[in-house]
């Protein structure tokens, strides 16, 4: 049986770093998936990502989240990055408790705009957040580079990120 879920690259930070970069992503897969376990240098930071070094206002996101008390939904248009885990002291990344995020990027090598679904899990034993973000990158270019970062913060030592490729055939 053909392997359809293949590791492309993985990074574990030995020290605090502004961004984790996956570059030269091959175009031989159908979809991409990123698994991230992260802490950040500033409590409450959002997890951000950009594709192909594009930091123009080509991203938008619609999200639904629950903070243990309320459920809510928001939408942000014309952003300069994609998002997972909205930024606030209770909902964003922690400085000490790892959060788990998965990012599914669909048809990343296609010639239409790109959708990325982020599942963010940031329970902190008494506070925290569970969140789903649908991100749109308005570009027809194939994705060949992804930069992950924490908003206005560094990703802390011990943060891990793995990029997988998923083949339809």
């Amino acid at each position, binding site marked *: 049986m053909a392997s359809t879920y293949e590791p492309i690259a993985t990074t574990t930070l030995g020290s605090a770093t502004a961004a984790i970069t996956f570059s030269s992503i091959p175009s031989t897969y159908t979809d991409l998936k990123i698994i991230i376990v992260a802490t950040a240098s500033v409590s409450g930071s959002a997890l951000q990502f950009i594709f192909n070094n594009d930091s123009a206002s080509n991203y938008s996101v619609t999200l639904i989240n629950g903070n243990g008390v309320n459920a809510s939904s928001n939408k942000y248009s014309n952003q300069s990055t994609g998002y997972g885990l909205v930024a606030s002291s209770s909902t964003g990344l922690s400085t000490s408790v790892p959060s788990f995020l998965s990012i599914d990027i669909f048809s990343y090598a296609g010639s239409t705009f790109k959708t990325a679904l982020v599942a963010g*899990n*940031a329970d902190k*034993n008494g506070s925290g957040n569970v969140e789903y973000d649908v991100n749109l990158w308005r570009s027809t270019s194939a994705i060949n580079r992804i930069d992950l970062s924490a908003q206005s913060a560094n990703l802390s030592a011990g943060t891990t990120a793995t990029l997988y490729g998923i083949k339809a055939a």
Partner: protein
Amino acid sequence: MANTYTLISSNVLSASATSITFSAIPSTYTDLVLRISARSDSTFSSGIPESLVVTFNGSGASNYSKTTLYGNGANALSVRDTATANAILSFNAVGNGVTANTFGNAEIYVPSYLSSTSKPFSSFGTGENNATTAYIAANAALWNNTVAITSTTIIPGNGSNWLSSSSFYLYGIKNS
């Protein structure tokens, strides 16, 4: 290229069982995935959901917590458990009080299960049953323990047994 999404073990019930345990989980993977289709003997009335109650390494210490986002067909809501003796992954299964032949379905993802830090994990599941009320739920959970995970047990939160035909599959994912 290595096969990175590998079945470690499965348990498809031919009779009721009080719990499901996967033990001696090998340390050769990076992440774990549990895929579950489950129905319990809970006799709660239609619309009352069942939960997946998860422990790791047999630990019943109050080191688990979770934040849940769920919808019941009418509203979106959120609840939280703090410092519990197990992870109650809400609304991810169904009980025997709801429509016959319906099972709740869920995926539990445990990244970095060998790490020496506390373990975040997630579940996403449904309990659709063609009744007035059904549930879809996402749980962000945390096991605040620094030891590697070597076993996991899943029991029903409301019922006493998982019913026949419930299925539990444990997969390992390698990052290299």
